[in-house]
């Protein structure tokens, strides 16, 4: 395969790096052998699964409802999501969106009117960042 026809993705199960073809829709992780979904999803109806995981992006439209834990690159919520979210990129909740669940992501954006409720871990968390600001007495 030519180098420019591949891209690196991180496994949604084990975090291992895999080089995948630009147009591949799924691949087996070379580290944990589990199947990786690479596609983007647009959800405009009701969806409930045990785990909704993709190396691509998920858009939940205004009419969409997802009741499931989510592992994703970027997540956009215009409708409703109930479940814990782990994103490698950005979580975005628009003015019509509602996200209930714990959120782990480097970046979050909540538009005016958007609602979130849950425990958040946002940003890169370097070791001891808190202790540096608040030293133990």
């Amino acid at each position, binding site marked *: 395969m030519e180098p420019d026809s591949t891209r690196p993705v991180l496994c949604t199960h084990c975090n291992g790096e895999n080089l995948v073809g630009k147009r591949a*829709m799924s691949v087996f992780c070379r580290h944990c052998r589990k199947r990786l*979904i690479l*596609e*983007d*999803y*647009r*959800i405009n*109806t*009701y*969806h*409930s*699964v045990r785990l*909704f995981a993709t190396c691509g992006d998920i858009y939940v439209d205004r009419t969409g*409802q*997802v*009741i499931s834990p989510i592992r994703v690159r970027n997540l956009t919520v215009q409708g*409703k999501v*109930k479940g814990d979210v782990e994103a490698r990129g950005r979580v975005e*909740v628009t003015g019509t969106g*509602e996200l*209930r669940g714990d*959120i782990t992501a*480097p*970046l*979050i*954006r*909540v538009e*005016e*009117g*958007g*609602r*979130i*409720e*849950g*425990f*958040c*871990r*946002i*940003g*890169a*968390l370097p070791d001891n*960042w*808190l202790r540096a*600001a*608040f030293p133990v007495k």
Partner: protein
Amino acid sequence: MAEPQTPARGDFPTIIGPDAAFKGELKFEKGVRLLGRLEGLVESPGQLEIAEGATLEGDVKAGNIRVDGSVKGNLRASGKIQLSASAKLEGDLTTARLEVAEGAVFIGKCVVGSDAAAKGGPAPRMDDAAKHAPQPVKK
């Protein structure tokens, strides 16, 4: 003769300087800008700004809160909470609006929504229904 006011002074009649370390309970009518170190409770219907390099350990109830520095405590705003790129926050956050810049670090429980700051109650529950598997985007 009236002295011309810089916007910062107009917005923040009270400034806690970089050399100041304050412990206790603070109540303000208008804006507060924290440049130093504060330990305790802050209450203001106006804006609280925690500048870069400043630290606040304690709970805050304010109209709007902007964090450029470090906070350990719970923040509650009736309007907006802004976390800038240099912000570090450990604590719970309740606000009508949240703005988080890239680079900001935040860990804690988070309730955002127009009714969150007023009531703090849980959002209405979503419907339960049958299970369906998601379908990928058709290309």
